[in-house]
C-alpha cells in the first residue's frame, strides 16, 4: 500500500519539493513497516503461525513483557502510518505533493487502515487488558489532536492545512479508542463499546468530510492554480456552487450541530464523560482533562476552518488568479455533492448508523449496546445512565422553524435591502482588497498565544530604489518553526550522517591498509579460539 501510494505522491516529480516529500514519505512508512514487522514477529513468535488466528491464539499465552513490547511496536508502526504526532512529519509533506484526489483518498482511507489494524491488534490479538496502554493511546491522541490543529491554524497552504487537520482528527479518533481501552481494562465493556462507537463514527465522518474538503481544495487549485490562502478571496462569487459544498464540509469538520462532525464529537464527549461511573479515581481525573483538550481542539478547528472559508471565499479576491476563477466543472461538483449530502445525512440521522457500528464494536468489545442507545424517542441517542440524550433530527427541525421567524420579519415590511454602498472604512475613499484581513493576520492571536511552540521567525527585507532613504518596496516573510522536525528529526539524521562520514574513512584506498585489516581479523579470531571461544 505504501509503496504504490509513494508513486502516486511522486506523480508530478518535476518539482524538487515533490521528490523531497516523496522521499520523506516512503522512508517514514518504511520505518512504520519495520516496527509492524517486529510486532508481528513477536506475535507470531508464540504460535509460529502468521495468520490472524495464529496471532489471536498466541495473544493470551505470551508473557507480559512480550505483550507490552508487541503493543509498543504496533503502536509506533501503525502510528507512523496513521500520522500520530511524533511520527507525523511525512503527512504535511506528502498530502500537498500528491494530486488532490489522491490526497483525498490518502487521508480519507489510507490513514484509516492503520486505525483498523490498531483495533485489530489491541483488542483482537492482545486482548487490551492492560490499563496503561489505554492511557498511552489517550495521551497520543490528545497530543496529536492539539498539535495537529495548532499547526493547521497557522498554515497558509490549503492542502498542508488539511493534512495537519487529518492529524488532529486521527487524534480525536484515538481519544475515543483510548477511552474505550481504558473502560475495557476497567472491566466495563458497555462503556468501552460506546467509546468505540464514537471513535468509529468519527473515523467514518472524517473520511467523508475530509474527502469533501480535499476535493474542494483540488478544484480551487484547479481553477486558481495556487495553493496559497493569502492569494485567494472572493471565490464565493466566482464559484458559488463549490463554495456551498465547501461550506458544508467546513461546518461538519468544525463539529457544528446539524452536521456530521457534531454527532461524533458529542459521542466522544459523552464517552469521555462516562468516566464518572467508573471506579478508578485516576480515570475520573484524566478523562475529563482529555475532554477539555477535545473541547480546545474543537474550538481551534472551528477557528481554523473559519479562517480557511472566510479568507478563501469571502470578500474581494486578493489576486488576479482568484479574480478569473471559474466554477468547478460538473464531475467535480457531483463528487463533492455526494459527500456533502452524505455528511448532512450522517449529521441528522445518526440513529441508523449506530446499530451498524454497534455490530462492529460488539465483535471486539464483546457487548452490543445498540438497542439501549437508540431506545427513547425515535431519532435520539440516549446514554444508558442519567437520561442524557441528544436527537439531531429534532435539533435540525427546531433550527428550521426558528429560522422562519426572523425571515418573515425581514420580508414583512419594505424592500429586502436598501442601498448598496461600499464597506465602511472610516471614510477611506476606496475599499480595495488590500485592506482586507489576511489569513496570517486572522490566526495571529493564536500564534502569539502559543509562540514558544511555533517559534515564529519573520523577516522584513526592504528594497531601496535610488537612495538608502527612499524605500521602494518591502518583502515580508514569516515562517513557523516545525518543532518536531527541527528538534527531533534533523539532529538524529545529522548524527547518523556525521557518524557515517567518520566510518567512510576506513576505505582509504591504500592496499596496505586493506591487508592490515585482514591480518587484524585473523589475529582477533585466533585470540578468540585460543581463549576457548564457545
Amino acid at each position: 500500500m505504501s509503496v504504490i501510494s509513494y508513486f502516486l505522491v511522486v506523480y508530478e516529480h518535476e518539482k524538487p519539493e515533490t521528490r523531497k516529500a516523496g522521499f520523506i514519505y516512503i522512508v517514514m512508512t518504511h520505518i512504520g513497516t519495520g516496527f509492524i514487522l517486529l510486532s508481528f514477529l513477536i506475535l507470531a513468535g508464540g504460535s509460529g503461525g502468521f495468520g490472524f488466528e495464529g496471532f489471536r491464539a498466541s495473544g493470551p499465552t505470551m508473557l507480559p513483557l512480550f505483550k507490552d513490547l508487541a503493543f509498543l511496536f504496533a503502536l509506533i508502526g501503525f502510528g507512523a502510518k496513521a500520522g500520530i504526532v511524533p511520527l507525523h512529519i511525512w503527512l504535511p509533506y506528502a498530502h500537498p505533493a500528491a494530486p488532490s484526489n489522491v490526497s483525498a483518498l490518502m487521508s480519507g482511507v489510507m490513514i484509516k487502515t492503520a486505525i483498523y489494524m490498531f483495533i485489530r491488534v489491541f483488542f483482537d490479538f492482545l486482548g487490551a487488558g492492560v490499563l496503561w496502554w489505554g492511557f498511552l493511546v489517550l495521551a497520543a491522541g490528545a497530543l496529536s489532536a492539539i498539535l495537529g490543529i495548532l499547526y493547521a491554524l497557522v498554515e497558509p497552504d490549503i492542502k498542508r492545512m488539511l493534512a495537519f487537520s487529518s492529524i488532529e482528527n486521527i487524534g480525536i479518533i484515538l481519544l475515543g479508542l483510548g477511552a474505550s481501552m481504558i473502560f475495557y481494562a476497567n472491566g466495563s465493556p458497555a462503556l468501552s463499546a460506546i467509546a468505540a462507537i464514537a471513535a468509529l463514527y468519527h473515523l467514518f465522518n472524517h473520511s467523508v468530510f475530509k474527502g469533501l474538503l480535499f476535493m474542494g481544495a483540488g478544484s480551487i487549485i484547479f481553477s486558481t492554480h495556487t495553493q496559497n490562502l493569502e492569494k485567494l478571496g472572493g471565490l464565493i462569487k466566482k464559484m458559488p456552487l463549490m463554495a456551498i459544498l465547501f461550506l458544508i464540509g467546513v461546518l461538519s469538520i468544525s463539529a457544528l450541530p446539524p452536521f456530521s462532525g457534531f454527532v461524533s464529537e458529542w459521542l466522544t464527549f459523552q464517552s469521555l464523560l462516562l468516566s464518572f461511573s467508573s471506579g478508578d479515581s485516576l480515570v475520573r481525573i484524566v478523562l475529563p482533562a482529555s475532554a477539555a483538550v477535545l473541547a480546545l481542539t474543537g474550538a481551534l478547528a472551528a477557528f481554523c476552518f473559519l479562517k480557511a472559508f472566510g479568507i478563501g471565499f469571502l470578500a474581494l479576491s486578493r489576486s488576479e488568479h482568484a479574480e478569473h476563477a471559474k466554477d468547478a466543472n460538473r464531475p467535480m461538483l457531483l463528487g463533492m455533492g455526494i459527500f456533502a449530502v452524505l455528511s448532512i445525512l450522517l449529521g441528522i440521522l445518526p440513529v441508523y448508523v449506530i446499530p451498524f457500528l454497534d455490530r462492529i464494536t460488539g465483535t471486539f468489545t464483546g457487548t452490543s449496546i445498540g438497542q439501549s442507545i437508540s431506545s427513547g424517542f425515535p431519532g435520539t441517542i440516549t446514554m444508558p445512565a442519567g437520561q442524557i440524550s441528544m436527537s439531531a433530527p429534532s435539533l435540525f427541525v427546531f433550527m428550521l422553524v426558528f429560522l422562519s421567524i426572523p425571515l418573515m420579519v425581514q420580508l414583512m415590511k419594505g424592500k429586502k435591502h436598501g442601498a448598496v454602498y461600499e464597506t465602511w472604512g472610516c471614510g477611506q475613499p476606496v475599499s480595495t482588497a488590500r485592506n482586507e484581513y489576511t489569513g496570517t493576520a486572522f490566526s495571529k492571536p493564536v500564534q502569539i498565544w502559543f509562540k514558544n511552540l511555533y517559534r515564529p521567525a519573520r523577516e522584513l527585507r526592504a528594497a531601496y530604489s535610488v537612495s538608502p532613504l527612499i524605500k521602494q518596496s518591502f518583502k515580508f516573510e514569516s515562517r513557523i518553526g516545525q518543532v518536531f522536525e527541527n528538534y527531533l528529526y534533523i539532529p538524529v539524521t545529522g548524527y547518523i550522517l556525521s557518524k557515517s562520514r567518520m566510518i567512510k574513512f576506513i576505505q582509504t584506498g591504500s592496499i596496505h591498509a586493506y591487508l592490515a585489516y585482514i591480518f587484524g581479523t585473523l589475529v582477533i579470531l585466533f585470540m578468540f579460539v585460543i581463549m576457548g571461544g564457545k
Partner: protein
Amino acid sequence: MIEYLLLAPVLTGIVCFFSKTRKQVETASMVGSTATLLLGLVLVWQVYKYDIIITWQNALFADAFSAFIVLIVSIVGFVASLYSIGYMGHELDHGAMDLKRLRLYYVLFHGFMFTMLLVGVTNNLGLWIAIEMTTLVSALLMILYSKKSSVEAAWKYMIICTVGITFALFGTILTYYGAVNILGETGDALNWTSLIAVADQFDPTIMKLAFIFILIGYGTKAGLAPMHTWLPDAHSEAPTPVSALLSGVLLNCAMYGIIRFYTIATKSTGVAFTSNLLIIFGLLSLGIAVPFILLQEDYKRMLAYSSVEHMGIIALGIGFGGVFGVFGAILHMFNHAMTKSLMFFGAGNVLLKHETKEIFNVSGLVKSMPVTGAMFVIGTLAITGSPPFSIFISEFTILAAGFSQGHYVATVLFLLFIIMIFAGFFNNVSKMAFGTPKQGIEKGDVGRLMLVAMGILIVFVVVLGVYIPPFFYEMIMKVVEIVR
C-alpha cells in the same frame, strides 16, 4: 553429464578466439551461453531426479546445492552474455573498444563462466582451485579498459583475493589433516560426501582453526565485512556485464564454499561456535555497508556496497540456522543474484548514455530513458526489500528465523540497518530517477537487446516475490537438508 556442462563454455571460448568479425564472435558467444544454460537446466533436472551425481572418479560431483549454484551461474551468465552483446557493441561503435579487445573479452567471459561452473561441481579441494582461477580470469577481465582506476582496482582485487585464498588453502589443509587421521590416506579424503559422513569424529580444535581460516579466506572472496575492501573498487571499475557476474554470481560461489565447510565444521565444533561467527560477520558487513550507501556519490559503488550488505544478510541467515534461516539464506542467494544483476544492467545503461558515474550529474532518468528508468526504480525497490518483491520474502524468512531462534538483538540490528540502507539507497536513486534530465541527454533508450536482458530478470524478481513454484521450493528444501 557434468563434463558436457563444463565443456560448453570452454568450446565457446575457443570458437570466439578464432572468429574474426564482430558478427561471428557475437553469434558464437550467444550459441555458447544458450548451450550452457540448457545443459545447466538438464543437470538441475537430473539432480532433481537422482539426488547426487558423481563422475570422473569422484573429482566432479553434483548434489542439490551445487545444482542450485549451477542454476544461478547459467541463468545470470546467459542474461549477461545477452547484455554484453548490446553493451560491447555500443562500446565498439563509440570507439572505447577495438575488435581485438572485443574478442579477448568474449574469450575471458566464457572462461570466467567455466571457472564459476567448476566451483559448483568440483569436489572438496577442487573448490579452492576453481575459486583461485575465477580470481585470475576476472582480474584479466577488469583490465580490459586500460583506464588508471580499473588497473588499480584489478591490482587490489588480485592481491587481496590471493592473500585471502591462501588462508583458505591453509584451512583446507587443516581439514584434510583432520580427515586423514580418520579416513586414512585414501584419495577421497577430500570429497564432500565422504567428509560429511565422518564429520562428527574430527578433533574440534582443528576444525575450529580450519573454519576460521576458511571463513577469512572465502569471506574475502565473498566480500564479508573487514575483508570487503576490494569489492567496491573491483565491481565499480569492471565493465558492467562483468561486474554483474562478479557481484551476482561470484560472491554466491564464495558463499557456497563457506556454507560447505560450515556443514562439516558444525558437526564437530557444535553449532554455537560457527553460527555465532557467521552472525558477527553478517552484522559487521551490514553495518559497514550502511555509511557507504548513505553518503555515496558513485552509483556503481553504491550497488557494490549493497552486495556487501546482501552477503551479510545471507551469512546472517545461515548463522540463525533452523529451517527458516537456511531456507531464507538460500532463497536470498537466488533473489540477490537476479536483482543485483538487474540493477547493474540498469547502471550500465545509464553509464552508456550519461558517461558519468556521479549520481549528482544524472537526473530525470524516468524521462530520458523511460524503460531503463522504470526498471531501475523497480530494481531499487526490490533490492531494498520492499514488500511486493522477492528479496522481501527471503529477508522476512531470515527475520522470522532470527526471532524464533532467539537472536533478538541481532534481528533488531538487522532491521535497523535495512531501514537505514533503504533510506540512503532511495535518496540517491530518487535523485537520479526523478526530476528533469540534464541538458544534452536526448530522449530514447539504449540498445533493445539490453532491455530484453533486463526484462528476463524483472520477471524473476517480480514473480518470485509473489509465488514460489513447487519445483523450485522442493529444490531449496533439498539444499536445506544438505546444509543442516
